[in-house]
């Protein structure tokens, strides 16, 4: 089966048959596949909610849904996209690729791996079930500020809290597994500074997750106590502090933002070097930049809270610390451009998505820099300008990174090449619609439209209609992606082990057959 790695004839080491293969699997590829499909399904569920939001906002007035349901849609759209799509997709890619990139047979803790995946469908089953309960699901925004999410929340908030706890456990277990694997199972000769950048990005991300997921668990537990056991952490009437909620939430929330982008940095770095046929420029500065971003992410949280009434010194501190993040982020962009410079560049679908990633993520970075400027943020805060900013870093940022990675590694995973023509069509439709959707949001935001509004004043009508058209187009286009993925799994031109010209030099995963053997490396490769 494999051309490079010697395989032994262990008949019982193949996958089990039927449903039990997926329920009881401890194989990193099977679990990676489960994570990726889970994330794909959640993308369509969260996407459908976005379509409801955009349909209602197509025109001023209330036409399709009432505000109470609209608020449930915005809340669940955010929660699902953050915790159900971006994070599981990255974990799925980590499961598939980390053992193959470091020359290991599997993840270090395979049973834990199975548990951390199967917790997720449970968590999201609980969350989504609240939408069918009489009081409706969570309706207080994905940031669930108290006291709207405590004293004034529907009773189903308890399901939401439990669901967040379960997601947190899943993330922490997954991170422990990833750190253990990276530290203990690298091929001989692969020192830390020889690790592929995707491995580096996940090592850093996993530490961020372990650091902040308990903080999220803490804040929802405080909510649980306030709601059910008469404490007053966030209840001013009982001597509590509603602003404390925001500090604790964003102490989790800001590192969380980087959790959702760092693995994409790793993926895009690999793709750009592959299709520029030139090793990544400034490898060590890329590693230091990611580490700096991760460390800085712990001291910038209150830039989400410039209007809560902090002292002047606090406002200025968080402005300066936030601006500092632009330095390592800028360095990464410069390094990607320098990798392309004097390369030998081709434009396969993964490369197209990665180029768009660099350009559009940088635009998201610029609006982020603008938002860091405290006095200007008084005008931007909680308007569509913010919505434009975080969608630019999360959709053409994180999601493009994931899609690029999927195209890049699909031939390796399935042994079949995807349809390049359809892939390019998917790229161009996605690229156009993502900008039609999110670019005008900058304008309506600056002109004064607040976020989380089910209805708006008449001067915002034209841009909102345009945004909705873009959003419908973006949503429909992703069905094409689903089609391409299924088509590639079923058939396609046989992929070489190397898949991409010259990739064999760039990473161990390309020395394995396509598709790779069930236990990736049964004999450790040597890294020089």
């Amino acid at each position: 089966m494999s051309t490079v790695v010697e395989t032994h004839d262990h008949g019982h080491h193949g996958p089990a048959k039927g449903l039990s293969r997926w329920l009881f699997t401890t194989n990193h590829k099977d679990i990676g596949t489960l994570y990726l499909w889970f994330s794909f399904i959640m993308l369509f569920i969260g996407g459908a909610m976005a379509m409801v939001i955009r349909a209602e906002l197509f025109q001023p007035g209330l036409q399709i849904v009432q505000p109470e349901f609209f608020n449930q849609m915005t809340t669940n759209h955010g929660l699902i996209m953050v915790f159900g799509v971006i994070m599981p997709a990255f974990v799925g890619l980590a499961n598939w690729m980390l053992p193959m990139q470091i020359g290991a047979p599997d993840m270090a803790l395979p049973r834990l791996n199975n548990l951390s995946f199967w917790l997720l469908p449970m968590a999201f089953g609980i969350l989504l079930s609240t939408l069918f309960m009489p009081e409706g699901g969570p309706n207080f925004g994905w940031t669930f500020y108290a006291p709207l999410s405590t004293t004034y929340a529907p009773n189903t908030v308890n399901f939401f809290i439990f669901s967040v706890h379960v997601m947190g456990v899943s993330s922490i277990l997954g991170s422990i597994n990833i750190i253990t694997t990276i530290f203990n199972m690298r091929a001989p000769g692969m020192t830390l500074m020889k690790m592929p950048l995707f491995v580096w990005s996940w090592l850093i991300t996993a530490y961020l997750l372990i650091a902040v997921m308990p903080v999220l668990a803490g804040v929802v537990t405080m909510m649980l106590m306030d709601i059910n056991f008469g404490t007053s952490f966030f209840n001013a009437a009982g001597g509590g502090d509603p602003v404390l909620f925001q500090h604790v939430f964003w102490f989790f929330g800001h590192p969380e933002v980087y959790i959702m982008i760092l693995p994409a940095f790793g993926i895009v770095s690999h793709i750009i070097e592959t299709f520029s046929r030139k090793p990544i420029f400034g490898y060590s500065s890329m590693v230091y930049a990611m580490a700096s971003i991760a460390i800085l992410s712990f001291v910038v949280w209150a830039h989400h809270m410039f209007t809560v009434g902090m002292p002047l010194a606090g406002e200025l501190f968080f402005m300066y610390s936030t601006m500092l993040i632009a330095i390592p982020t800028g360095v990464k962009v410069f390094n990607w451009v320098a990798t392309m410079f004097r390369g030998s560049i081709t434009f396969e679908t993964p490369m197209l998505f990665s180029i768009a990633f660099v350009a559009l993520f940088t635009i998201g970075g610029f609006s982020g820099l603008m938002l860091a400027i405290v006095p200007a943020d008084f005008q931007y805060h909680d308007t569509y300008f913010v919505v434009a900013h975080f969608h630019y870093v999360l959709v053409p940022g994180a999601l493009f990174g994931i899609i690029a990675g999927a195209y890049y590694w699909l031939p390796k995973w399935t042994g079949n090449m995807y349809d390049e023509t359809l892939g390019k069509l998917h790229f161009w439709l996605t690229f156009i619609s993502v900008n039609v959707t999110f670019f005008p949001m900058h304008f309506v935001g600056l002109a004064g439209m607040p976020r989380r509004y089910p209805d708006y004043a008449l001067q915002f009508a034209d841009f909102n209609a345009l945004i909705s058209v873009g959003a419908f187009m973006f949503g429909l286009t992703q069905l094409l992606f689903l089609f391409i993925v299924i088509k590639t799994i079923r058939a396609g031109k046989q992929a070489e082990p190397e898949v991409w010209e010259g990739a064999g030099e760039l990473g161990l995963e390309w020395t394995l057959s396509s598709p790779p053997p069930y236990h990736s490396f049964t004999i450790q490769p040597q890294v020089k």
Partner: protein
Amino acid sequence: MVMPVMFSSLVFSEDSDYNMKVGVTEVSQSIFELHMLIFWICVGIGVIVFSIMFWSLFKYRKSKGAVAADFDDNFWLEIGWTVAATLVLVWMAVPSTQVMVKAYDDAEGEINILITGHQWKWHYKYLEDEVGFFSNLATSQEQINGEVPKGEFYLREVDEPLVIPTNTRIRFLITGNDVIHSWWVPDFAVKQDAIPGFINTAWTNVPEPGIFRGACTELCGIKHAFMPVVVRAVEREEFDAFIATKVALAEEERMLTSKVWTKEELMERGEGFYATNCSACHQINGKGIPPVFPALDGSQIAMFDSKKHIEILMEGVQGSAMAAFGDSYSEVDIASVITYTRQAWSNGENGDGVIVTPQDIVAYKNRIDL
């Protein structure tokens, strides 16, 4: 700073549909200039980076026979662009700090106004004169539902705007009654969260008369989009006259408490109060939106338990959206709306029909105070 200011005055009109409002105050104008400065710096960086990137993509195409070079690091280049990025950030940080120091000033104003966010309306209280009022959305539900054409100021109009004098330092003290709201007037560049248990401050000094429209910018529940802010800036004389009227009205209101009210008078007043303050949740037909907003029509409390009815109006219902109205409204308003809801719909026929008078509310307050 010259270039952005020049550009901004050339390209953007005051009421742009696609850019930040210049506003009318000194602070809002310096924030606008700062915004344009940062914007143009970002555009400049973008042009440089993207030009190099797209030029490289074009020039080093494999299809045109480009062969990859084999360099992959350059220490001084890395140091160089790190230092360059740092310098650009310092260039941005200096004016930002200056504008921030100017905008941030919590010294007392000549006029101090307490702004309280409620679900879903604003309450304004002039602290020097001890008068206050609620400001509710004036756009009709029919316009929102699309049954009649939408007016020019759809969702940006209120029954009673906040009135402030021009050329006067005004300090806003901002707090919340239930959940967190946020009070925003783009023309003043004032946006402050209204947080229960906290009093935040902001200030402005408006040089010219006008009507300035803003919004609530922190998600505060179902009617978050339906509690606009409208501020009317007037000359000092007009403002003094406005306050004098308000003071006289408040005095009249206090007199009303001791007056003997007939059922009809209470009903009439209560119906108006109900339409403005209660119907958003409990609906004009009293049917509510169960289970979140209970029906009043046919409610056991509204039909048979006037004591409990008073208590709910005065204290609110813990853990629900029902706010305490006791501190915000006069005894007459509370008594009349209770009387109205005990008589309206089918409640009058099926219930005890007890009439609650302002004196009953006074008695309740005295009992509580003991």
